[in-house]
């Protein structure tokens, strides 16, 4: 398929349909409405299921029901709507259900605004639902990568029987970029565990996260945790830019990472050997990869469109080897590369 110019939200929805998503449940919220609208039209045309639910809570619960019945399904929303979905996401994780959740994040907290931000890093990676669980979090840097990650999300969700989030931002949702969609059907897998009402299989299937007694619940938590350890060992994705000889490490993700890349170029032009490590998976976080670069750098700077969320994971990864600094703008303000250059320069030559 050749490259076409597509709006991020629409490309995300189209990629999901090519990835075999058969049921979409969503609720209108800016800046992701084109996903819901695209699905309203094209789910019908591709003989899938589309429901505009009464709320984001209802939508995630419809996802839970469809996933429990063994069907590839997704929902999408933005920050305040993702907040509403936390209970349902915890239930999906506890019941081990594959589900893809696309978050097109915006400024917060509360109603915030509808401009792009990265202040949902904690919401995505720590989760606001109850219990010990993790959501696999992928974060694209543009429309093309968003489509690739949506497809990868369905693959991971089915493979690990877990909710997977694609954490985009309002910029990706709204801008148009050239995209080459992968139109190969994503392999379907057997789901012998699904409660799809087919008792000819000879046994009942129950989808459940309730374990009344302590030992079974502890064992269940270990089963879940084993998945997360496997992710940490095998599923981390990261992008390196000019890191081989870097003496200053920048860490940034999502669309702002493209601005940071530009800052790296500007710093290099001035003789400062900056490098950018871009996490593509926010959970599992590339802790080992960041730690491995510490011996060669003077400091690490985390640049985010927030008040400082990913920087905490960076600090944990760095583990005291070198200073860790933070630069951020938020509320929908997007930093310019010049700001990042100035921030790096301000830290050169010692602790400030």
């Amino acid at each position, binding site marked *: 398929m050749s490259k076409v110019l597509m709006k991020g939200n629409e490309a995300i929805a189209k990629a999901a349909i090519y990835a075999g998503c058969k049921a979409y449940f969503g609720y209108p919220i800016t800046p992701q409405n084109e996903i819901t609208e695209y699905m309203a039209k094209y789910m019908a045309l591709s003989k899938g299921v589309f429901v505009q639910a*009464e709320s984001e809570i209802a939508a995630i619960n419809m996802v839970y029901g469809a996933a429990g019945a063994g069907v590839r399904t997704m929902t999408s929303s933005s920050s305040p709507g993702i907040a509403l979905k936390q209970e349902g996401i915890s239930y999906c994780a506890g019941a081990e259900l594959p589900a893809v959740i696309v978050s097109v994040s915006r400024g917060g907290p509360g109603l915030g605004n509808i401009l792009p931000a990265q202040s949902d890093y904690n919401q995505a990676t720590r989760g606001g639902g109850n219990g010990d669980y993790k959501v696999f979090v992928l974060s694209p840097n543009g429309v093309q990568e968003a489509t690739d990650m949506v497809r990868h999300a369905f693959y991971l969700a089915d493979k690990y029987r877990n909710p997977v989030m694609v954490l985009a931002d309002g910029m990706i949702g709204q801008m148009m970029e050239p995209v080459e969609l992968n139109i190969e059907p994503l392999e379907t897998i057997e789901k012998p565990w699904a409660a799809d009402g087919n008792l000819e299989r000879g046994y009942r299937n129950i989808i459940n996260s309730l374990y009344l007694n302590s030992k079974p619940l502890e064992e269940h938590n270990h089963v879940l945790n084993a998945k997360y350890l496997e992710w940490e060992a095998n599923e981390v994705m990261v992008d390196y830019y000019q890191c081989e000889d870097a003496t200053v490490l920048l860490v940034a993700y999502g669309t702002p990472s493209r601005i940071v890349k530009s800052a790296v170029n500007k710093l290099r032009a001035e003789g400062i050997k900056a490098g950018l490590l871009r996490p593509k998976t926010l959970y599992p976080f590339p802790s080992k990869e960041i730690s491995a670069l510490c011996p060669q750098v003077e400091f690490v700077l985390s640049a985010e469109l927030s008040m400082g969320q990913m920087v905490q994971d960076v600090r944990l990864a760095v583990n005291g080897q070198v200073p860790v600094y933070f630069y951020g703008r938020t509320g929908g303000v997007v930093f310019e590369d010049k700001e990042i250059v100035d921030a790096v320069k301000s830290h050169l030559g010692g602790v400030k």
Partner: protein
Amino acid sequence: MSVVFKKTRGLTDTPLSYCPGCTHGIIHRLVAECLDELGILDQTIAIASVGCSVMSYEYFNCDSIQAGHGRAPAVATGAKRVHPDKIVFTYQGDGDLASIGTAEIVHAAHRGENITVIFVNNAIYGMTGGQMAPTTLVNQVTTTSPFGRDVSLQGEPIRMSELISTIPGASYVERVMAADPISVRKAKAAIKKGFERQMNKGGFSMIEILSSCNIGWGKNPSDSLKYIKNEMAAYFPLGVYKDKEKPV
């Protein structure tokens, strides 16, 4: 010798964990009997809710999905939309359906989801220790209405069958009770009709069954059933509130 009555295969062998004399036991049995008698047990997905019946998936002898509190109609929507030829039903109490789940039940009815809702109304939150429910009667004493339900502070009990019947998407809404053998038989007929409505793709049905909570009400099983018949049925009149099979 011919068998007039034996335990239905719609129920598993697991002993029910409900209190002695609890009408949940009767209603579970009625639902299970209907599924078996209609020949749909092996194509059914039961959506369990949260309340005393949280573990209903242990008892209904079919596939089951446990839903969060109030969310069962949304979970049922997800399952039914992707498997329209399977039978999907929810089994919900009054806290689940009429409090936290009001949006979900209204909108499932509003969209005309082809599911069957079994609404067990015993005017109290049994599982959590006897708190006031949206359907608790005026002046009824519960742990969160210790001086009796006060209309000026807590409103009057909500009548869900009446409410749901005003929604165009609702196809069949009936209120019955499980208070004695005759009313139990009538309740079974209503439940069966609700499943038949789904089998005929006739749309959304809800059967509200006035039920008891011996422990929560502080009454023995026999007195509880009299309370249903005399007090509850007076405020929640029995009858068919909507019966309009949607054109297939």
